[in-house]
């Protein structure tokens, strides 16, 4: 049963305990500004609403119920304690425009997170306000732009982006008014250094990279790249989506990056929430500090205060109504405190251990790694190019069939340059048994592909719905429910 909530609605029904009392008031608002129809919201009882949304939830996969080897997404355990503590009254009922004197509790957490992020990134300044990775990218590139402009260096119109980059990178660069130039990848998954050299020039504002890259391998020549880009007058942006691979082991600041974001919902384990909210704090080297987005938290003596546009005249400005996803900042802070200094580097170590172990098992079973000579970072790529050719199955089919085995599918078809790819990231919080069970399932699916490919083609079979028609969805747009008039 997946009846829509509207189909359970009846005129004049309501969740009565939730309705404010009827007030008898004469409005001094002109009648023509008042609404005279009733918005089409459900009219259901409290039990109906609770039951409907409880039941709907059970039609989802989630970390709390399934293994989620989703490359680039770092789907790891989201500590329940952290979620609960963020619901403490003092945090939850705290108005964002409270005076500083009424905000010291929250500000102390934000301030300390700023400091922790500086340490783990090797950077000099941090602003927590960006509300997701993509907004962090926007902020970062905007700072690159502000930096060049502040120096009168106005001819830099291009941002370089490897072809393996996540879609947000070019999109963010464009949103900052830049042109995007793609740099190819070499056979071992590294940036093609010659192509990079050729692309660099006085028009280069900077380059956006993640390291390890979205190909699951560490960019070995990163220091050379940094030197080349800097010599050309450009700056280096680090896409922090893969920070989990190196947390506490290697620091982007030490690699030569000037600016980066951190996906709190990945490395710092704040829950993904079915697509958000996340957090995308930015960290910068010395020279970009003046441009950080506001507000930030400063500590003066024992007290904390907000830094605003007034304190930071060169800031790229404000990116959110208040200070970004404050509750996510709080959760990331708590997670950092739970890990502590020892816990940080274990994240990268065990994420890498799990990935390399899973890779070893899959290799042994006959799967083809995209970069067979390379170590896996915290993730790695399997290409099903050959299986696709021989067995006429696709990465999509394998992914859908995995769902039947009660495993979330890996990331498919990203990065775009690897054909029929699965990007697999087990994360450090999954046990060896879980990783083994996933490997067994994938091996089993490969076996099925050989003996009974139809079972893949028609997968999933065990889920609330069979394979969905996305083409129909896009062609015959049905984006809002319209009641059938009787």
């Amino acid at each position: 049963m997946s009846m829509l909530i509207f189909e359970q609605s009846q005129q004049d029904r309501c969740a009565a305990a939730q309705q404010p009392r009827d007030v008898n008031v004469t409005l001094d608002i002109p009648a023509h500004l008042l609404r005279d129809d009733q918005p089409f919201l459900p009219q259901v009882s409290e039990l109906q609403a609770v039951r409907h949304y409880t039941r709907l939830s059970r039609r989802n996969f989630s970390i709390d119920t399934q293994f989620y080897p989703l490359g680039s997404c770092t789907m790891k355990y989201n500590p329940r304690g952290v979620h609960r503590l963020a619901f403490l009254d003092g945090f939850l009922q705290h108005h964002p425009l409270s005076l500083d004197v009424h905000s010291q509790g929250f500000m102390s957490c934000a301030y300390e997170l700023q400091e922790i992020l500086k340490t783990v990134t090797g950077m000099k300044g941090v602003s927590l306000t960006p509300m997701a990775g993509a907004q962090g990218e926007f902020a970062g590139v905007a700072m690159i732009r502000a930096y060049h402009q502040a120096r009168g260096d106005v001819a830099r119109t291009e941002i370089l982006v490897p072809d393996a980059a996540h879609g947000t990178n070019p999109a963010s660069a464009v949103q900052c008014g830049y042109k995007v130039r793609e740099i190819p990848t070499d056979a071992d998954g590294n940036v093609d250094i010659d192509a990079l050299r050729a692309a660099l020039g006085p028009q280069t504002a900077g380059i956006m990279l993640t390291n390890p890259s979205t190909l699951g391998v560490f960019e070995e020549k990163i220091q050379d790249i940094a030197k080349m880009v800097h010599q050309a007058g450009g700056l280096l942006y680090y896409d922090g989506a893969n920070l989990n691979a190196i947390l506490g082991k290697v620091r982007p600041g030490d690699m030569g990056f000037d600016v980066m974001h951190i996906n709190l919902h990945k490395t710092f384990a704040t829950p993904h929430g079915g697509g958000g909210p996340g957090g995308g704090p930015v960290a910068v080297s010395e020279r970009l500090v003046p441009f950080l987005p506001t507000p930030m938290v400063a500590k003066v003596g024992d007290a904390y205060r907000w830094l605003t546009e007034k304190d930071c005249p060169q800031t790229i400005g404000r990116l959110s109504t208040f200070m970004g996803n404050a509750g996510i900042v709080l959760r990331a802070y708590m997670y950092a405190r739970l890990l502590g200094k020892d816990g940080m580097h274990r994240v990268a170590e065990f994420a890498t251990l799990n990935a390399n172990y899973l890779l070893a098992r899959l290799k042994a079973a006959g799967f083809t790694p995209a970069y067979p000579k390379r170590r896996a970072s915290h993730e790695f790529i399997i290409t099903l190019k050959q299986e696709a050719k021989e067995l006429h199955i696709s990465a999509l089919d394998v992914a859908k069939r995995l769902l039947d085995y009660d495993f979330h599918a890996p990331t498919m078809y990203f990065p775009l340059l690897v054909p029929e790819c699965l990007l697999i990231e087990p994360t450090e919080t999954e046990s060896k048994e879980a990783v083994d069970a996933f490997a067994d399932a994938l091996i089993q699916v490969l076996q099925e592909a050989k003996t009974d490919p139809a079972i893949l083609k028609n997968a999933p079979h065990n889920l609330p719905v069979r394979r969905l028609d996305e083409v129909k969805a896009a062609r015959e747009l049905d984006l809002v429910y319209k009641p059938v008039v009787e």
Partner: protein
Amino acid sequence: MPFIPHTKHDVQTMLATIGVDKIDDLFDEIPASLRGASLASIPDGLTEMELTRLMRERAKQDSDLLCFIGAGAYEHHIPAAVWDVTSRGEYLTAYTPYQAEASQGTLQLLYEYQTMMSSLMALDVSNASLYDGASALAEAVLMAARSNKNSKNYRILMPRTVHPHYRDVVRAIVGQQGIEIIEVPFDPRTGTTAVASLQKYANDITALVIPQPNFFGVIEDVDALTNWAHEQKAIAIAVVNPMAMALLKAPGQWGKNGADIACGEGQPLGVPLASGGPYYGFLCCKKEFVRQLPGRIVGRTVDADGKQGFVLTLQAREQHIRRAKATSNICTNQGLLVTASTIYMSLMGPQGLRRTALACYQNAHALRDVLTAIPGVEVVFASPMLHEIVLRLPQSVDTVLSELAKFNIQGGYALNHVYPELGNCVLVCATETKTSADFAKYAEKLQQVLSKSKGVHAAFEKKTLVDCEKGV
């Protein structure tokens, strides 16, 4: 090892399978000079018990406040069921619903949300959320710039009655793309944007932003503004409080043809104040704009058996497909907040939402009455309002608010910093959560504060109106 399940034995077996001796060997492709970050300044790890103690202390510092601040974030009653259900692991810890068959819960919920939000705005379609109200307005402006083929110069009219932080954010975001934001002053008597005052900008306007209620809590004449925009072939962008739309005419109903795009802050619909976030931005539009709509959109379709199901659709607008040519760079959005809002709207229904708006109206007026009974406290704008009001105090607003803070009263938002022309003015809010006892307490303490420091502040003049007319 918090959250890491590996036993020593596991590690040994796994290393053997990989064929290395120790975990550090797995990092051997990383130049040695880069390895070994110092974490010395990070504190030692805490147990959950220790963290709980720490966070309780921190939370307590900011606790037990009687809040009359609104200014873009509103304290409303949130039924317990909303976050109880939203916090279920299946919503909380799910990823973006790219694997549709394994995400029917979230997808159906989003489809229901789109239906509710479109209807609340009286527009055809809704996306599945943006970051927050301010960034949603920035996206709406970008959308208008992309869509309006009549306008060449990307000129956006932005009333100063729009939330000042929204204006800052729009500037920071769209400013990078050569879009001009023209600020329009407000009528100092009414606190609204007069159509007459727009006339002087009436040349190649891309879009007009129309707030309802506006930042001062005042109700704008949205019909006239919308009609004016359409006469200029400009796109009418509504930025509204969604709660108010159960009572006030909704964007799609404004003027002759309705606003084209509506956006705003979803927080009033079931999202706690929480220091400012996570909230979510909503964005709705007429259907002709749907391909310019940024963010995720869910569509209803069928599965291989012809059974109803839901998928993300029109993904070709998005960065993971269209990359540099996407409608926006947004990827992770604010899905969980939409989950809460959808449950909230289901529990409130049309009647609950309307009654909430009415209770806010009533309470704000009651608060106004009790505060303006204090000598020297005056209403600034002679206009209908909803749940917020600008009051002029006889003394320095910053001092008064600091003094009230000592009684754990949050007296409102000081307007002098962003509107210097509104010198001693404070924006005060009362939602349905407040009682007459709360109002009495506020009034009593305000009176006490004002009389205590009367001597000191006697020198202050009422120069507000003068400043204001200068249009600072």
